[in-house]
């Protein structure tokens, strides 16, 4: 009995600590526009980190929590970008509609592609994700009449949000836009965290840990990998839609596998076994890029250097050491 009681106290204590960590993370994010200028940052850099951090976190639903590596997830990010951009450009001057359209375009196409590739494993899975991404890249690149081709899609702007009598001017006010992005970020990340703590989420961890055991528990592994791919596509498409709003611009580079690689690097840099790792990875990546690219055009070299150092000394990423549990 005493053993069980001690276990219960331990569990309660670790739950308390989790809430504290969570509160601290959100406090840092909410207060970011206040403290970032003090260390040389600026609000729109914070917004960019949130958007790319959301993309890397969404990709990590697949990599870190299902154990399946996609090197082509920029496809669904980019489709989110174009979905939002095309609505604002051609259909209606509505930011919420643009976001919904971006999420649906990236998510639905990700769901279809996922159904086609969920039987593949390992390197074959990674390769077909790249192949599909290239298809969407070339559509974006070649279809001048709709997407603007190589020059990208211009001539649209994110629109102020009307909430009854109150208008949130995310168009001209960077600070308002930051908080708007943080709000969407919170919704998406909250949904993902909720799913991961569900019975369905635990089946994904099971597949990551040991596919054969998962199958012999009666989990339909291919179907669950497909669902994880689909969910991850919807989530990353939300980040894509925000990216279109951030830049008031959509171009084929948001569909290119360079970006997929960057997102994987962000996730690994921060730590794929930690929920918040990819956000930290995105922050490090973007800050380094922002700072070093003002000094030299060869900034990517230094990012590579940092990546190699992190992988050598923190093989589980910057937040990896939080993963180690106590031994008793």
């Amino acid at each position, binding site marked *: 009995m005493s053993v069980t009681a001690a276990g219960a106290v331990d569990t309660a204590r670790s739950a308390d600590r989790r809430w504290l960590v969570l509160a601290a993370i959100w406090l840092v994010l909410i207060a970011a526009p206040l403290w970032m200028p003090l260390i040389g940052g600026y609000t729109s850099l914070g917004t960019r980190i949130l958007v790319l951090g959301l993309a890397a976190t969404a990709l990590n639903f697949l990599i870190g929590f299902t154990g399946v590596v996609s090197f082509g997830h920029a496809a669904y990010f980019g489709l989110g970008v174009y979905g939002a951009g095309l609505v604002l450009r051609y259909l209606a001057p509505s930011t919420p509609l643009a976001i919904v359209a971006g999420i649906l375009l990236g998510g639905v196409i990700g769901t279809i592609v996922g159904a086609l590739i969920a039987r593949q494993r390992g390197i074959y899975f990674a390769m077909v994700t790249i192949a599909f991404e290239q298809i969407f890249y070339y559509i974006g690149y070649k279809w001048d009449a709709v997407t603007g081709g190589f020059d990208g899609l211009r001539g649209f702007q994110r629109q102020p949000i009307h909430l009854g009598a109150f208008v949130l001017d995310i168009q001209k006010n960077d600070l308002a836009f930051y908080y708007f992005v943080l709000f969407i970020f919170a919704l998406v990340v909250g949904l993902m965290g*909720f799913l991961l703590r569900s019975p*369905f989420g*635990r089946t994904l961890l099971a597949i990551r840990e*040991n596919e054969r055991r998962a199958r*012999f528990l009666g989990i*339909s592994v291919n179907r669950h990998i497909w669902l994880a791919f689909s969910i991850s596509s919807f989530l990353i498409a939300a980040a894509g839609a925000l990216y279109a709003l951030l830049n008031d611009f959509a171009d084929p580079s948001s569909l290119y596998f360079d970006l997929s690689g960057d997102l994987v690097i962000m996730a690994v840099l921060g730590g794929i076994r930690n929920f918040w790792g990819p956000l930290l990875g995105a922050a490090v990546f973007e800050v380094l890029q922002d700072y070093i690219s003002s000094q030299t055009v060869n900034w990517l070299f230094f990012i590579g250097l940092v990546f190699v150092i992190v992988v050598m000394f923190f093989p589980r990423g910057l937040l990896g050491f939080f993963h180690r549990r106590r031994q008793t």
Partner: protein
Amino acid sequence: MSMLEVHNASKHFGSLVAVREVSLTVAKGELRAIIGPNGAGKTTFFNLITGFFPPTAGEIIFDGQNVTEVSAAERVKRGMARTFQITEVFPELSVRENIRIAAEVAAGYALRPWLRAEETRNIAAVVEEMIGLTGLAGKVERLVGELAHGDQRAVEIAMALALRPRLLLLDEPTAGMGEQETYEIAGLIRKLHRDKSYTIILVEHDMRVVFHLADRISVLDQGALLADGTPEQIASDPAVQAAYLGKAA
């Protein structure tokens, strides 16, 4: 009433005949051991029963239904649970989480994004029951990958039991274990059979464990069924002694 009937099952890998026209019937509540020298086809035979791959010929009847063409996952749903020769667990999850996943999947919650409070309580009760049954009470929050081999095996058995199986298949449960661990796992299997009335099929190398636990023993040799009977019959069977026990002793 028989729990499992195998009729003339064969498995060929190219020109290699791993299992050759094996038939066997396991009664409800029986503990059946399958023994045989290395390469006799024991694990292949296990894989045929559990649907890891289909037989080249023959039929498998589980609880009155022909499951020869039924997938592994579906056989699990119908009540077959297995452990593996090399322990298969979720190493970076805790003991509790390992067993909870098995219990949730068995309850049909694999696709559920949330559970009602009552459902959560039922799952927790199953998990506690399995932890108690397998003697893992002091280790529930440990990561399974950190546990000793015998405890990992106990976790694997607990996961199989959480599926509420009607037939439990254990592939060399004491493989690679020391004396003490072997003794504990054998005690657990005996408890499951005698006290909980599980129907169990056991592949095992350790003859003390086999003759101590089994109601009936089937002997495989070079893919074929050599003998089938009570431990006394098997021990005194001259063919078995020649092919197997004589060499082993």
